[in-house]
């Protein structure tokens, strides 16, 4: 009896060790590019193609340069542009997504199923197939020049938010319907159920929705490129970073790119990791099985 227990123990020890070694190797593989770009952002070797992994000297100049050298690529302005666009489109899309999700989950009306089918069909089209068309629509609305470009970006990023209701709807579906019914029996209106019962129970999914919609403008460069065209004053961070890697800039701007990448990744990663619990909850539902 005892002997068998011991062999099970060794077997468990061996398998645990193997698992941990494999996990460690994978983790290194996953973290290597991140680590490399962080090293690069402090490096004094400016170009991307150096033979050394470890930089010869560490410096903060790349970060300084990013915010002071505004002659070719004005990073501070791009940062502000993106921040403004992100805040507004985040507010609008969160409102839209949550509204639609709630309607889809809780209310029963004639157009519900048709709308869900339509949404599914629309998501099957390549997202930016309509890119050129959107540009012409924005031009017809007079939103393609000057400061209106920011409005155009906000509209493009939040316009389709109503279609991204699946995750939030799935979350709302898990909130017991009995709660709503009890409130309705007590004379509450649907609006009160939405604002006073569903919303307070849905913090995880609200955080999730806010986060994903806030991140959109920071990471999109396709629409931003098409809408901004040559208006460098309204470039977002994504276009800026993208341009730093173009052939004419890369040799001089690569370390600045690394610094910029680190800078915008830090807040986004922190937001993401802090709310990681919410994130996972949001995907798996409010009420644990």
């Amino acid at each position, binding site marked *: 009896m005892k002997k068998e227990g011991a062999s099970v123990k060794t077997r468990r020890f061996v398998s645990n060790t193997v698992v941990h070694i494999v996990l460690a190797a994978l983790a290194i593989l996953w973290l290597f590019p991140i680590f490399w770009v962080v090293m690069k952002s402090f490096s004094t070797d400016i170009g991307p193609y150096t033979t050394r992994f470890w930089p010869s000297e560490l410096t903060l100049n790349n970060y300084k340069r990013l915010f002071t050298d505004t002659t070719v690529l004005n990073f501070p302005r791009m940062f502000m542009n993106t921040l403004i666009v992100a805040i507004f489109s985040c507010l609008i899309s969160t409102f839209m997504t949550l509204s639609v999700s709630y309607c889809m989950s809780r209310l029963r009306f004639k157009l519900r199923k*048709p709308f869900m089918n339509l949404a599914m069909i629309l998501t*099957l089209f*390549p997202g*930016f197939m309509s890119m050129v068309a959107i540009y012409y*629509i924005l031009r017809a609305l007079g939103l393609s020049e000057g400061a209106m470009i920011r409005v155009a970006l906000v509209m493009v990023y939040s316009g389709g938010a109503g279609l991204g209701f699946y995750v939030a709807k799935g979350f709302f579906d898990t909130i017991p319907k009995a709660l709503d019914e009890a409130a309705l029996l007590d004379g509450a209106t649907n609006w009160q159920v939405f604002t006073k019962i569903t919303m307070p129970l849905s913090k995880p999914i609200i955080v999730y929705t806010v986060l994903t919609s806030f991140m959109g403008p920071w990471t999109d460069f396709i629409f931003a490129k098409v809408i901004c065209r040559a208006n460098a004053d309204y470039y977002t961070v994504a276009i800026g970073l993208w341009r730093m890697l173009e052939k004419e800039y890369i040799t001089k701007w690569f370390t600045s790119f690394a610094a910029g990448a680190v800078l915008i990744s830090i807040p986004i990663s922190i937001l993401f*990791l802090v709310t990681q619990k919410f994130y996972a909850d949001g995907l798996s539902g409010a009420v644990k099985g």
Partner: protein
Amino acid sequence: MSKGISGLFTKKVSDFATPYTLGAAVRKGDLGTRLSLVVCGAGNMLHRQVGKGILFLLVEAAYIWFMIRSGIYNISMLPSLGWLEQEEVWNEAKGIFEYTAGHQSILILLYGVVTIFLTAMFVVFWRGCLKSAYKAQCLQAEGKHVPGLREDIRELFNSNLQKLLMTVPLLGIVAFTVLPLIFMISMAFTNYSKLGDHLVLFDWVGLANFKKVLSFSDSIGQTFWGVLGWTIVWAVCATAFNYILGMILAIVINRKGTRCKAFWRFCFMLSVAIPQFVSLLIIRTMFNQDGIVNMMLKQWGLISSSLPFFSNATWARIMVILINLWVGIPYTMMQATGILQNIPQELYESARVDGAGPVVTFFKITLPYMMFVMTPYLITQFTGNVNNFNVIYLLSGGNPTPVGSTAGKTDLLVTWLYKLTVDQQYYNLGAVIGILTFVVLAIVALVTYHNTGSYKDEEGFQ
């Protein structure tokens, strides 16, 4: 507002049957209701709903004003798409060349499509008016209370909450998704392209573009079948490997013996937390011909010349699938972790009591549960991968590209679409590719989605 489009997919749903239908309104309507056929809101005004009636009338007036101002002209131009070329005219008095404004087909097409849209919306609105008038008439005839505007507004917060909450999102969807899509789809039937110099003035050409793309003899057609094949291979590989490996990773981290679960999850999650285009650009630079990976391998003496990561077709294809694993596995891991922790522990306990080993519990409990919950996720992953622009465009840019071809060896349909429209300005061919991509995805989605439990049994979780 998109009732006009979504109405196409409406099946007869008896749950929402109402006596106030269009037919009944025409057959049994009184003078006021019938007057609403022409003057929206007339019936409501005659049946104690003055405020509502005036609102309806205002909408109709606005529509008529728009149609007279420009709508009728817009639609009349649609069949021809314009013919007037921009011309230089010598101005004697000023002694300069002046340009006469020519027609711009693209704007004519856009305004035409918008006008048709507005008209469709107006028809839906008009039907609504008629029904509303008939309802007011019936309520009055039955001696019931006819709700005033204020009560209607109050109902927006209760029984009609969906109207309040959905209107703005629907408007957004119509303006920025549906309308551009239809606009783009209509381009597929024109010769709007740099080929033959049709960028300003173009015409309807029917199905010619589809024939060109689908034919085996045309060079565009040959490219299409090649790209389609690779797109499907890519999507299947990317989805399947991500799913299987991600799930294994989640299970390995979640198993009892693994220490520091949170730390391991953190390591993998970090790559998700970083904006995708940043990490992809970094990886591309690392795997460049002179990038750090080649340099290090050379330094260690493992290779003598640079590995052709993105310049050889086979290498490039394998690389994009591998790097996509780097991007995708943590996502699946996160999803799977949440679901794993949600599996009721009683199931495992009773299985253990019954003497089931870890392998049996995995195949009998874990896997079926995961499959049930994650099938919709798998489908969205598959469609996401078919439309995965970022990974391909940022990593390989579709390269290597054979000389003279419009698509590279790693180009997916979407990246090819992007190149055709943005770089080549073959807008009509791009639109055709978009439509065909949709067709491929629609077939896959229809077959699988309707067979999944969570679609059929949508209310099962509640």
